[in-house]
């Protein structure tokens, strides 16, 4: 078993098809057609990843996303037909780690899911410092002055990616490739939104960041240790 995937989609045909494909790839899909029941299903099944359609009857996909994120750092991949920036950004800001635009190819979706699930497979004992933060890679924890800061796995990966090479400036594309696993250039808004979220958690003053520093015109780098 590669992992449990909770599929939250009201379109039963698509959900079923997703189930078929994921099962074909070796995952264990669980279907949920109603936003109202999504949280309950999540708690019941404890999936390793959630596939979430933004447009749901009942509770909105955004709300579901927020609710899940409030309880867990489990990776959430959004399915969306909306390409408008606002929708995507709202989805990302509400806690989604990645999104897949309809219509998507099954392989692309599988690649996304695989990328999100990959990290847990390689625990390397490592201790990194970025700014005044101490990152225990293996322990999957971030501490400032001994106080732990709760980060989602994606945020953690983003922070670790920056902290491992504090001398390097990462373009958004590089970050997309390293953290999200994109082969080709994709929507850099993913990076922007997650950097903002990361900052809101790790920075003393998100307005003048010290941990994740913006390099204008290029991208981001780790702040001085």
């Amino acid at each position: 078993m590669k992992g449990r995937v909770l599929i939250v989609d009201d379109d039963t045909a698509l959900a079923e098809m997703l189930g078929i494909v994921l099962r074909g790839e070796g995952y264990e899909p669980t279907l949920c057609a109603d936003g109202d029941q999504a949280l309950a299903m999540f708690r019941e099944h404890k999936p390793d990843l959630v596939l979430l359609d933004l447009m749901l009857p009942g509770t909105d996909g955004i709300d579901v996303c927020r609710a899940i994120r409030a309880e867990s750092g489990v990776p959430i991949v959004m399915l969306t037909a909306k390409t408008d920036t606002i929708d995507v950004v709202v989805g990302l800001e509400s806690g989604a780690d990645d999104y897949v635009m309809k219509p998507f190819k099954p392989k692309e979706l599988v690649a996304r899911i695989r990328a999100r699930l990959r990290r847990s497979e390689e625990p390397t004992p490592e201790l990194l410092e970025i700014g005044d933060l101490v990152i225990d890679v293996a322990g999957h924890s971030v501490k400032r002055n001994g106080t732990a800061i709760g980060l989602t796995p994606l945020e953690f990966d983003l922070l670790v990616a920056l902290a491992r090479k504090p001398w390097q400036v990462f373009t958004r594309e590089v970050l997309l490739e390293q953290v999200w696993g994109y082969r080709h250039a994709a929507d850099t808004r993913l990076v922007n939104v997650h950097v903002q979220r990361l900052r809101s958690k790790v920075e003393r003053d998100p307005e003048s960041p010290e941990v994740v520093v913006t390099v204008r015109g290029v991208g981001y780098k780790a702040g001085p240790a």
Partner: protein
Amino acid sequence: MRRWVRRGIAVWRRSLQMRVVATTTVFSLVAIMVLGNILITEVRDGLLDAKVQASLAEASTGVRTSQEAFDSADRSEPGVYDTLVPDLVRQLTRGGGPEGSRDVVLLRGPDVDTPESPLGRSSIGADVSAVEPMRPQVQTRSELLWTYGEVSRTSGRQVPVVVVGAPVVVPENGTYELYFLFPLDKEQETLGLVRRALLLAALGMVLLVGGIAWLVTRQVVTPVRMAARIAERLSAGRLEERMRVRGEDDLARLAASFNRMATSLQRQIRQLEDLSRVQRRFVSDVSHELRTPLTTVRMAADVLHEARSGFDPAVERSAEILQTQLDRFESLLGDLLEISRYDAGAAHLEAEPTDLVVTARQVMDSVEPLADRRGSELRLVVPRSGAVAEVDSRRIERVLRNLVVNAIEHGEGRPVTVLVAGDEDAVAVAVRDHGVGLEPSDITMVFNRFWRADPARARTTGGTGLGLSIAMEDAHLHGGWLQAWGEPGDGCQFRLTVPRRQGAELEGSPIPLEPADSARRARPVQVGAPYRRVGTPDGVDA
């Protein structure tokens, strides 16, 4: 200096109030000047008339006195005139007034030839030259004659005078000429005083009139300016702005009608907006509604495609066709949605400084496989310093990919050159191919939706037929240009030009539209340029 003049002219052209005030001031100045001139002339005439009359009266008395004095002189006394003449001249000079109030000149007439005659001398200090023009007439006419003249004082000052002359008979000697010179310096002073006072009054008057004109025009111009400001705001989209209606005068009526017009406009715009919103909603809904089943179909087709090897050959082929047509359907749907977003005005620019060289290189990398398939060699010419501009890299990349793919597809296997260049204000990317080229009449058409150069070859190549249209929209969204050049048999060149800073206006491109290696310098045809950013693209297809 010239800057000030130009600025003055600009203010003159722009400000009605300024123009009215200036015109009123100038015309009142002219009127006051003319009136003042008349007034001064009147004053001067009055002064002169009084002075002349007084002078004539004095001179008349003086002449009479002199005549009597000569008549009553003691003729038995030897050398009587030796003392009488200077004494008389002194007495006349004094004239009962303060010293210097007049000069007296007594000259020997031409009929007096006796050399021992003691006359012919003038009073001390008198400038005799002023009387010269009168002498011939005084000698021949037994009248009191007068004229204006000028004498120089010992101080060197020139003083205007009234010269009065008359003949005087000196018994047993002959006729002499007696001249009185009455200085007009007092009158000159008075006139100067009056002139100064008038000038001050005129200045005050002009300022006053100017001020009044300013106030009056302000009453008219302020509402007009307000209307202009409101109209500007309306055109900027703040449709709820209205003029204040005060009173019941013409301006109030103007404001009221203006407001009515604004309301009407607002209503229509709202209607249009509503329509647009409905449309957008519709498109969005369609997209969602279409995409979800499409996704399902795509996944199902994929599953079928994966499993095709186990199928009947006909079914296997069908699965393949299903797969490819689904790809096409997908990209067509994507382009349609993109275009519809532009049409709905829903496109947003997320600009940040981007090096177009990097973007171009990425695009070249991504289309390398296609170029290999077509046998086209891809060349990239870039400036050493890079070409950073504030652009939405996603859109620019799409534009470039579109252009390069286009060039490869129409390049007939010949090399395709991508040229990146930048100057101070703009960055340009030109994509040159050496394919069949374009008819000049077609140049205007290439950006049309679903336009194809050769209908006969329709559908044989890839693409949806919307690529260049979207590219054009993207270029416009940046405030940039997308222009085409082509010659049949000489290939084409597409040039994208974007300003380095968003919001700046393009004035030129760092790359000439016609490529340097064109067969002949054809007349460049600019399409859709220059372009101002507007909410909704209109008629740029032409």
